[in-house]
């Protein structure tokens, strides 16, 4: 079993719905985004085009974050998902240095909310304690949802249906078929981490 994601850039409209879906699914504090979309452009007028590149943890086959973690907080699970155990994390942030995708997030505080002069809202009081200040967090492919047969929130929410998720070890899975049928690529392959988020287009 090796969970992977495919993102079809031909379909992505760069709306950042996935970014906010992830934020609310995980109840992340201010400034913490496990996943986001870079919106940019290419070309010269009038042949210019707006582009969008959604990025998230690549759940690499050879995750350098796991290698460098001094306390074994970051672990590649048998299903391919790379997880972080917040209880073990000592917040050294070595993993952030090691990650070629700069996607890991350091939680400075779990008590500062979006309304600095007004205190935490009931929602924030409910959700922020699930984040340990002084630790590093990242996407875990919504492992709780996936364990129940669901999809990661970013995949389900995408208005353009540009994201796909599944088992790369299964040649009949949607992700396997998409990769086989298209010229799929990964980000920064030269870093040698063997990422498992593929892009088409």
């Amino acid at each position, binding site marked *: 079993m090796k969970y992977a994601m495919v993102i079809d850039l031909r379909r992505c409209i760069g709306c950042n*719905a996935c970014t906010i879906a992830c934020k609310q699914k995980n109840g992340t504090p201010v400034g913490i985004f496990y996943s986001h979309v870079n919106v940019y452009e290419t070309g010269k007028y009038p042949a210019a085009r707006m582009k969008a590149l959604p990025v998230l943890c690549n759940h690499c086959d050879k995750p350098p974050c796991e290698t460098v973690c001094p306390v074994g907080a970051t672990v590649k699970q048998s299903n391919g998902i790379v997880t972080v155990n917040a209880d073990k994390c000592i917040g050294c942030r070595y993993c952030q240095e090691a990650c070629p995708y700069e996607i890991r997030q350091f939680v400075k505080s779990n008590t500062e909310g979006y309304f600095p002069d007004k205190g935490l809202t009931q929602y924030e009081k409910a959700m922020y304690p699930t984040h340990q200040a002084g630790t590093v967090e990242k996407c875990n492919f919504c492992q709780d949802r996936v364990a129940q047969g669901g999809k990661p929130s970013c995949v389900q929410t995408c208005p353009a249906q540009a994201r796909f998720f599944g088992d790369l070890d299964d040649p009949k899975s949607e992700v396997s078929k998409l990769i086989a049928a298209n010229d799929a690529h990964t980000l920064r392959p030269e870093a040698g981490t063997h990422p498992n988020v593929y892009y088409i287009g």
Partner: protein
Amino acid sequence: MPNEKPKSGLTRRGFLELSAGTAALGAASYLLAGRISTLVPMVSAADVYKGDGWYPGLCKMCMQGDCVTRNHVVNGIVVQVEGDPRAPNNAGRLCPRGNAAIMQMYNPWRVKAPLKRTNPKKGLNEDPKFVEISWDEALQTVGTRLAKVHQDDPRKFVMVSGFGQFASYFSAMLPFMQIYGSPNDVPSRGQACAYHFFGSLVHMAIPDSVADMDRTEYVINIGRSQGPNIAVASSGSKVYVDAIERGCKIITVDPRCSPEASKAHEWVPIKPGTDFTFVTSMLYTMLYEMDINQLDVWSIKNRSNAPYLIGPDGEYVVDKASQKPLMWDEVEKRAKPFDAMPSMNAALSGTYEVNGVTAVPALQLIKDSVKTYTPEWAESISTVPAATIRRIANEFVSHAKIGSTIVIDGFTFPFRPVAVQVERGAWQHPSIGPWTDGVGKIIQELVGSLEVPGGATGNFAPQSMILSPGDDGVKAPSAEAVAKPWKFPPDLIDSHSFYPLSHTLPSLMAKAIVDPKTYHIPYEVEILFSSGGNPIHANFARDTFEKMYAKVPFSFTMSLTLDETAVMADIVLPEDSFLERQSFEFSLLQVVQPHKVSTASTRSIAMFGRRDTSKIQKLHNTKNSVDIMMDLADKCGFLTGDMGFLKIMSLMMGAPQLDCSRRPTLDELGEAILKTGYGDEKTLAGCTDAAGPVYKYKTNGKENFNYYYWPDNKTRFSMYHIHPLRVGRKLRADIKEAGLTAVPGWKEEDMEFFFHGFRATPNWILTEELSAPKEYDLWAFNWKTPGFPFYCGDTYGNVWLNETMKKFDPYEFAIWINTETAKKRGIKDGDTIIVESRYGKAQGAAKVTELVHPLAIGVPASHGARSTMANPIVSDGPNFNALCTIEETHRAIDPISGGIEEGPAVKVYKA
């Protein structure tokens, strides 16, 4: 700030256990708040809300408002909102706004209790000095005022409402106004997005016409953001990229290269405000550079008024006996009524003597009207290369597959997989804006692509009444094409009599309230009621609206936050966040059953928007708007009774069996609607997350296309647009009879410009902004973004939307300027620049980009303006609205649609 690690490593399950106690504590302190205004029934909140469950909901973060959601509620708190995968329209999807709904509800800037102003001085920079009062006092105060004005003169009560309360508007507010007897229901919104007239006229495409996205093959979008705009997740974006994936060619004519234009087959950059030249030169190409037999002659002759004979007065030449319009029968060499001859015998050109007058087929007049509108002429104004226009015109015709058919359900339809969709960006320019769509309809009729599979189907649910013809054989004007009746002096506060075909006129309402003499209003407005929208923010000329609210003796609002409109009010009634709105809500789908996206999953769908809020702990002392309207109807003494509020409301909600002798609960209302629409066996309690969304399709198969109901020559589309000509003539006569020399506010010398668009064939005219002094050498324009398409939902005050777009989208809170244009002005990316029109300024960070026309300055959404009591984030970004004017003296109001000129000429410089 101390960083706190929880005492134990908190897993999600641990959080549930911990927060049960926390929630109980929180609830107890809420109950013990002590102030009369915040008392709630003394039940144990912890018992009511304990648990973890998923409950059905409906998103209301935009006008469409039909994305079905599942809300995850833990101990009374909504912790996640996601799309329901079982809903046919959004199928689990949700746009950035839908995903941010939690931050609308858990927003400390919300109004928490009814408020009364204690500072009599009203102004956008004045502290209203609100104090909290009880609901009883608030409703009594409002009710007393309403009852008094009701007795005196109901016209003096004006309701101003927006999309945030769309459901209640149709179901509760309109009935209230009807019984109250006030005609002054003035939407807060719409003058910045007024594009419904020609669609209403030609094929009842209201709010707009949309291509049959499952089958269409060539779509020209002009001034329209298709996909990431409204209905982003409710199929809009998905079907857009699906269509492209299967090979559909989409041509985007727009000053900017949007995300959707970036995926389209072609982006055609165009100078703002000049789209009219693009379509008319396409029309020229089709009529002068193609053989008529390349067009759909069958459709032209059978399904349009193009063959109708027109006399020197511009009117139909009619049969004396039957009064039916005549066509010239080329076989019998005489004029005959349209329904008394084979349409294929009708002449489309030539000059004939009929009934003593010189008569010409309407198509000849249309052709004559565009004879100088060559692609070269269009290029000189729009900068779109003539070769591009010609090529697109030819591609459009060839992709129309004229003569082809498709069989659906055993019924043979013409198949014309092309569409031209003209929307806001093209419309919002006086006179020539609406006619861009008027010509867009002509172009489509020439290839027979209206209301058939593959073509532009109009997004109202298909049904037999839509294309039903009048006595003249032409589909009768409907919806916004029905001219508002003339009355002078006016009863209507918004001058609708003077703009009889317009969409909404909140700016004119504001001006008339401030200056009733100029607008001939024979009364002074006493009460303003605003809900679901913020007219001060959503329109232009904030100072005029400020004066309006300051002048009117009493205004009350239903408000989510203390926005500009609330800050000017006497009484603020706090409304539920939509996550808390109990029982049900109507979406656009349920109210008028159109959808921004025409696809198999949405066409003709009807849904019941169930909201189960039973386990969501209400945060504040807020109420549901339907409850509030029932309260007010009660205060005014017309809640019950044979033609009382409850009776009318029950009929308009589609629940005729409701017991109207007593006030229903919201659940009783919801259940009544559910049973009427979906069967007596249905119950509200049965609409659970497990059961899934409630919907049905009203028609299927062949019934999903209006051609089915009126095939062949059974109805005809207006191609020669005689209706605005007639309306204009009547309006001129009415104005003259009233002893006026001009429409209020307009200069006499501008009246020819005013009436210019009230014609039957297209004609170019230079607008104010296209003839601005040379120092204003660029043109600003605006568009809706996926994050902030409307004020609705408090998008501008949403911290997740704000943070996300600020961090990751450099195009959102910025002013777009072309790279070369910026270089010539010494402007670099990120510089603070000022955009100045003749009416105001906008300031913001420059986004130097290749994605915008060199003559265009793009200012997205409606950022950059807030009330003194709103979250400061609301003022992030540049404010487009400041650049426009509502003044008639600047010819800024389109006389047909009422829309405001949104292509102001500007100059740009570093701050």
